[in-house]
């Protein structure tokens, strides 16, 4: 009997001790992420039949198990992936949003036009010309600065992609190792679950999900398979496969994530989503590209349109206007394996059609297929070209072969490559190149308009030309010779690349002279036309002024930022709800553990009392036998 009671007491002591240990373990891990509280399952020992009935033999420990629900754990993982993606994305977009919200480029454009207006106010003033020259330089450097900041983001994203790939590999390696440990552990303990290993693996999976969205498959032996993208296996049992960060073959400035299959690395970035990777890729190929191309389109358009008007003027030295800016040629990358060649240029006759986008140009064996990457619209370029598309002219050089591929980046790098062309304030051409005058001997009051330049390339533009009225003054002749041209008051008279209108009723013999405006240092005729470009809807298919376009760009990025904040907040709530749901079941509650502590402590004391009671009974028996 005493053996029985000692046995029972021992099993009770043992059980209480296990209970205390487990409670202690729970308390110790109260702050361990993904830790699931553990419980000791007790069961009473098989009783012994003693004729009159069954006599209990004490308590057995069935198992120590974690209180966990796989569904809740999976919820935490998947919601973490999307929450972290939107969290990182919101932070990234916030950064460019802040930068574009600064409106540096817009204010540099405004400064240019303000300085131009000051030159127009007093064109001969060296000081205001100097200010205009500086505003040109300022505009160039502001744009370059903005581009450089955006490019820094791009480089940072690439670096982060590389670092993240390293982290993913470490995590998958660790998971593969746990898979191995689990098979070993499970093998050793039959069906006893290796609770803490499972928790640790769950935590690694959450950490992995923070980086990239993965699919998890549980195998019968308790190990996991982990897949990314379209089913690329990262972990299967104890085997792990690395991801690699590689440089895109057509764009050295773009880091791709590649997967080695059969010894060949192929990019899988396009198939990855979720987590930090999803955010980085989404940001780089989305908002950042929009911002860079938008800024680039402004730089290219501004440069070309201002140049064009500036060339129609005359500078202080009496020369025709040159360029204000050196417009960088549109950039493109070709695959190293291409057979053919192309050249790319801006289509100066359709500058407004320029889109803020990169393009993929691929030859399919018959035609070039042009894909605009901003909206993925596809267009077949049929024929030999040159092709005029979206303000670009694509000219085919050496004949292409199927598979030839180009990445056209017509605007992206423009702010970086843009330079000021003008170095001398005197070269600012705000004067009209030609001026008109009515001869002082004219008998009538007929007037002549200031000449407008319609073709600055006309070689005879600056040649002195007279328009002389005949008798009767219904006709006139150019330079007093040649055909008699009918006079209509106010009608355009186009000669030598300029256009004038004569108004009123000229008298016979009246003469009007159009001549070079050399010395016209006070004239601002071309400057005024140049300044009206500020209010012309030039950009985006003739719908927006320069500054409106920048405003729209800031608004677009702002809308992305707003959207990303909203989804960040929403997904954060979902993720934290999933976490709460999991913790409600699996999390440690210290008060509960305190109660358990007391419970097991008391159980232990009670079990010790059994030993004492048994001992007392035993001593009593011994004593009785002795006496």
């Amino acid at each position: 009997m005493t053996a029985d009671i000692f046995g029972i007491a021992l099993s009770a002591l043992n059980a209480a001790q296990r209970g205390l240990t487990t409670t202690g373990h729970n308390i110790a891990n109260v702050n361990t992420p993904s830790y699931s509280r553990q419980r000791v399952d007790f069961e009473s020992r098989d009783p012994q039949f003693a004729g009159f009935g069954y006599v209990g033999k004490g308590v057995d420990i069935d198992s120590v198990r974690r209180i966990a629900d796989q569904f809740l754990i999976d919820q935490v993982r998947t919601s973490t992936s999307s929450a972290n993606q939107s969290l990182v994305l919101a932070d990234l977009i916030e950064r460019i949003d802040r930068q574009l919200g600064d409106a540096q480029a817009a204010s540099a454009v405004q400064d240019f036009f303000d300085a131009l207006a000051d030159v127009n106010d007093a064109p001969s003033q060296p000081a205001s010309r100097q200010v205009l020259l500086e505003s040109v330089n300022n505009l160039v450097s502001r744009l370059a600065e903005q581009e450089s900041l955006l490019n820094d983001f791009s480089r940072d994203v690439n670096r982060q992609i590389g670092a993240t790939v390293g982290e993913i590999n470490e995590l998958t390696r660790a998971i593969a190792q746990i898979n191995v440990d689990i098979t070993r552990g499970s093998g050793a303990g039959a069906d006893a679950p290796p609770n803490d290993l499972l928790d640790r693996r769950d935590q690694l999976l959450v950490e992995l999900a923070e980086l990239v969205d993965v699919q998890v498959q549980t195998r019968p032996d308790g190990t996991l398979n982990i897949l990314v993208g379209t089913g690329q296996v990262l972990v299967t049992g104890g085997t792990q496969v690395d991801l690699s960060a590689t440089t895109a073959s057509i764009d050295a400035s773009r880091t791709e994530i590649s997967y080695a299959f059969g010894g060949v690395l192929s990019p899988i970035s396009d198939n990855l989503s979720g987590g930090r990777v999803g955010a980085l890729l989404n940001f780089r190929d989305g908002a950042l590209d929009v911002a860079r191309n938008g800024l680039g389109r402004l730089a290219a358009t501004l440069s070309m349109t201002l140049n064009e008007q500036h060339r129609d003027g005359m500078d202080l030295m009496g020369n025709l206007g040159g360029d204000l800016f050196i417009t960088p040629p549109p950039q493109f990358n070709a695959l190293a394996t291409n057979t053919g060649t192309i050249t790319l240029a801006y289509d100066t006759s359709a500058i407004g059609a320029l889109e803020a986008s990169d393009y993929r140009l691929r030859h399919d064996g018959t035609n070039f297929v042009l894909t605009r990457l901003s909206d993925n619209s596809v267009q077949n370029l049929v024929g030999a070209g040159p092709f005029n598309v979206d303000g670009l002219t694509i000219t085919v050089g050496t004949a292409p072969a199927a598979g030839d591929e180009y990445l056209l980046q017509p605007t992206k790098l423009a702010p970086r490559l843009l330079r000021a062309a003008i170095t001398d304030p005197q070269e600012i051409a705000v004067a009209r190149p030609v001026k008109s005058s009515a001869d002082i001997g004219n008998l009538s009051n007929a007037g002549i308009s200031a000449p407008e330049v319609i073709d600055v390339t006309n070689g005879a533009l600056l040649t002195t030309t007279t328009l002389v009225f005949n008798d009767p003054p219904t006709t006139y002749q150019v330079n007093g010779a040649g055909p008699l041209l009918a006079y209509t008051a106010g009608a355009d008279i186009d000669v030598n690349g300029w256009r004038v209108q004569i108004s009123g009723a000229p008298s016979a013999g009246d003469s009007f002279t159009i001549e070079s405006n050399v010395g016209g240092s006070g004239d601002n005729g071309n400057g005024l036309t140049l300044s009206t470009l500020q209010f012309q809807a030039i950009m985006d298919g003739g719908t927006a002024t320069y500054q409106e376009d920048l405003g729209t760009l800031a608004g677009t990025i702002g809308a992305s930022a707003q959207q990303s904040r909203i989804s960040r907040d929403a997904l954060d709530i979902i993720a934290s709800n999933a976490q709460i749901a999991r913790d409600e079941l699996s999390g440690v509650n210290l008060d509960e553990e305190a109660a358990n502590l007391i419970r097991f402590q008391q159980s232990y004391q009670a079990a010790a009392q059994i030993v004492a009671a048994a001992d007392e009974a035993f001593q009593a028996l011994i004593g009785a036998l002795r006496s």
Partner: protein
Amino acid sequence: MRVSTANHYRQSLNQIMTIQQRLAKFQSQVATGQRIETPGDDPAGMALVMQIEERAQAALQFARNGDHVEQRLNQVDSLLDNAIGTLQRVRDLTLQGRSEQLSSSDRAAIAQEIRERLSEFVDIGNARNAVGEYIFSGAQTDTRPFTEAANGTVNYLGDQVRRELQISEGRALADGFTGDEVFMRIRNGNGTFAVELQAGNTGSAQITENSVTDIAAYLPHDFRISFTGPNTFDVINDTTATTVLAAQPYVEGAAISFQGISVTMIGTPATGDEFLVEPSANQSVFETFDNLVQTLTSPTGTATEGAVFGFNMDRVIEDIDQVLSNFNQVRAIGGARLNTLFAQQQATDSALLHLETLSSQIQDADLSEAVSLLAQEATALEAAQAAFARVQSISLFNFI
């Protein structure tokens, strides 16, 4: 529902952090007075604000341009005011010099004063503006527009290019006048035609009055009144080589009318004397002065010379009046431009005010609301913190 301890901390902390975020937002709104910090706070609003700011900047620039136009037109006006004063003085001197009682030395003295007045005019014509540009040389602002040659003639070296400044998006206003239109391009005679004595007339007749009686009948042709006898004349149109009136009797003081033109002659013409009626040509103020000086220093001894003198003085007065009317017209145009400018400035001012209001509506925080929300959030934060501290201090472990 079980509450896990870690969760309890996390949730309490999250609540406090959320309140702190809102607190920070309202605090920044109160501190900056602005509702929008980055475009992401209100993308559409921010795009609009950027547009409004662009408009406002441009409006400020237009206002600055307008100020320049105003200054420059005012300067022209005051220069012309001076010029008109000088011209009045010259006109008075001319009337004085016209008097037949004056001796030739008196006239020479007047001529001398007029020469000085002429250089005053040259000075006015060569005036510069605040930035050192010659005001009256058109676009040739670095070129001194009027130079006096040794023989007293004054040449205009400027051009006819007018400079305009943008005073609104769709409107540019000339900020001055060219020397050509102020000083050079002045119609002589009565503005339609001018009368001349043919050089070499031997009689003492002169034209005293001339006018256009019927502008519709007037032709800008060269006419000649030619005396075929002491009291008979023909009127010949030299442009068409036709005789307009033939063998007309001459009556002293009676109007001679043809083709909308009316002239009145006094004195005694000699046979062969001719009088010319020509369309008005452009004559500069300097030429008019020169004519005046020439006339004042011409001899008046004989009856013929007296007639020529009297006639030329009348012509000069006529021409001076043309100059005066041109100056006044230029001032009137300047005044009209200033009126346009003032109207535009008012429009610009009210547009600026409107833009400011609009921009403030979009991006300014409602301060009273922000302040009250700030206080509300601060209270909430205090409560959350107190609740957290209170709840966290309770633990079963305290009782073991």
